[in-house]
């Protein structure tokens, strides 16, 4: 079934059919990835295509879905969009080769786990082979491949500390531009517990948002640049933060979430914030971008005062509206949270509401060569109108 911007709005508003809408968006995203997979194969050299098809046909449905929803497949897709216009045959073969790598690794790890021979691994020169989803890794120890599973939060979201994607340096990333300190086993388990507790709090306040996070976020990259907050400050490192990048679909990045200052109630915002980015990016992948991708002029976010890309602002408005909703519900006297958590949530509402109180329509803040896509401006301004009308009414009553 076709989806529209109203479906996204329905999820943000936690409409009665929100879970169905989440599934609809994710299925369309899956189909788009499947279509991409087919297009790349159809354009690749025959020998390479046959090699991919042979492995694919030997995989079960679960393995195929894991590959199609993986951040790695999304990354190949993102790169292919970036590379559009370059030498087509060369690019198509390179993309097909990367897709072969993904399914061959998934296939080999599944066989290894089942105790079956995995010839792909025997030919592998590296001593570590990761699944595309990041949920499993095979490591060669004394000539033998040993499989281990990654830590999981929320039932199936992978915590990724060590994969090649997790340890990349990316100059434009606030998280991946940071140095890497090793994370101990104890810290890993503590972080897993912390994020599970965070998700539990979100479920207790607004189960739709818990479902949103679990459906769209498949992988969490963890980075640590300092042992303590004081150390990060004294070394002038970035203290803490979270991030989503459209180059790594389905994944979010967290920096220094092991700090005790990052409480679980504070983490609720990060998980919801970044997971809505993932949902919106998935939606854009099959329905078209909300804005153009240019960065030479950037609007100012009313919330942070920073200049951010048009694409980020289009996401931010949905995100702050959802945070405004969740924090209002969490702060309510009948919420399931502790008194301290309720107070924390109440203290943050003013920030989420603030950006909606600016004088001009939020759609007027965009500085994009392309107009916003049909219906987008009205959708964003409607969220603003709701928040602004509420506080204008409060003022009127107080007068």
């Amino acid at each position, binding site marked *: 079934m076709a989806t529209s911007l109203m479906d996204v709005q329905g999820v943000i508003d936690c409409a009665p059919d929100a879970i169905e809408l989440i599934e609809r968006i994710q299925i369309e995203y899956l189909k788009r990835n499947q279509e991409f997979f087919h297009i790349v194969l159809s354009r690749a050299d025959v020998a390479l295509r046959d090699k991919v098809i042979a492995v694919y046909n030997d995989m079960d449905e679960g393995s195929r879905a894991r590959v199609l929803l993986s951040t790695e497949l999304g990354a190949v897709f993102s790169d292919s969009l970036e590379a559009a216009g370059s030498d087509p045959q060369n690019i198509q073969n390179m993309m097909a080769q990367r897709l072969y790598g993904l399914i061959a690794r998934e296939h080999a790890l599944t066989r290894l786990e089942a105790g079956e021979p995995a010839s792909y691994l025997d030919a592998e020169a590296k001593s570590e082979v990761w699944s595309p989803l990041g949920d499993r890794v095979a490591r060669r120890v004394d000539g033998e491949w040993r499989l281990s599973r990654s830590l999981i939060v929320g039932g199936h979201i992978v915590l990724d500390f060590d994969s090649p994607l997790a340890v990349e340096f990316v100059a434009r990333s606030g998280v991946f531009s940071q140095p890497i300190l090793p994370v101990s086993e104890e810290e890993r388990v503590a972080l897993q517990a912390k994020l599970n507790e965070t998700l539990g709090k979100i479920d207790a306040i607004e189960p739709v948002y818990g479902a949103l996070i679990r459906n769209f976020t498949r992988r969490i990259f963890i980075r640590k640049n300092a042992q303590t907050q004081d150390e990060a400050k004294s070394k002038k490192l970035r203290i803490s933060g979270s991030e989503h990048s459209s180059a790594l679909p389905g994944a979010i990045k967290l920096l220094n979430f092991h700090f005790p200052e990052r409480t679980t109630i504070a983490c609720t915002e990060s998980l919801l914030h970044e997971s809505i980015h993932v949902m919106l990016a998935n939606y854009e992948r099959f329905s078209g971008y909300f804005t153009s991708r240019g*960065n030479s*002029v950037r609007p*100012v976010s009313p919330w942070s*005062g920073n200049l951010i890309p048009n694409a980020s602002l289009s996401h931010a408005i949905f995100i702050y509206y959802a945070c405004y909703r969740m924090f209002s519900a969490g702060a309510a006297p009948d919420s399931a949270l502790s008194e301290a958590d309720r107070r924390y949530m109440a203290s943050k509402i*003013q920030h989420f509401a603030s*950006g909606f109180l600016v*004088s001009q329509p939020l759609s007027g803040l965009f500085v994009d060569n392309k107009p916003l896509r049909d219906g987008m401006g009205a959708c964003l301004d409607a969220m603003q109108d709701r928040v602004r009308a509420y506080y204008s009414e409060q003022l009127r009553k*107080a007068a």
Partner: protein
Amino acid sequence: MRNLTLLYSDAEDPLAVSLRAHASVEAMHVDDLTGYFGKEEREIMPSFSVPDAVRARFADKIVLNRVFNLKETGLGTRLKDWKCHEIWGHFLLRQLFADGSRLVHDTGPRGVSRTLLPLNTQWFKVSRLDDPVATPRYVYNFGGESEGLDTLREPFQKSVWSLYDWREERHLPAGEANWHRFFVEKPAGSPVLCYFFDVDRLGEDGLEIVPLRGETTADRQRILALARSLSSTFASAVGEFLFFVEDDGTLRFYAFSPYLSSAANHPAFAGHVERWVSSLH
């Protein structure tokens, strides 16, 4: 009869300096209103209870909103103490301005107020006017990236927020020095400052063109039309802007500013202020 009500946040603001003792102007510093703001711990929104007598000073008046920055004000400090975003201050003040007959300058913090836009946003808007004007070539890096500098002639680093300093940037904040770096081509040709007061109503009488080096060949009618467009684009009936006339006659727009800090040094400035205020009766 006082038709103009001025609210300002900076005591050094050139219009505040000119108008706060003016017989025809009701002038207030924003902190004259700070006592009317309050915050109950349990409430999300600060309260703003303005006595009728104060409210009457805005009702049916032309409101000149020179509240450009709350950071150095008592209101800004209070909002910070209450852990309230600065936007709440502007939002609540706007309820007062709504009683006025006309608002000069948009409300809100920089980048959000249409009056206080960063340089490249200004250029984006100016290059899309019905009668577009040339704007500087620039590179705006993302994050820690460093790319595209070789495409510029004589690039120099600027702050996107710094509306002055066109020879050498003297106000580059630490946060911009190595992150999201902004480079602009050094201006060429003759600099011209222009300031205006209500050009929609006053026409050429509200316009002053000040060549900063020698004389200018720029067409006066074209500058007037540009001033009118900028006045509307930046929601500012008063303001100043800088452009350069290049050797081939190209007029290149550099910056609009509502602050009037260059204009205030010009001998004709006081006369323009007086003429404008008189015209409001």
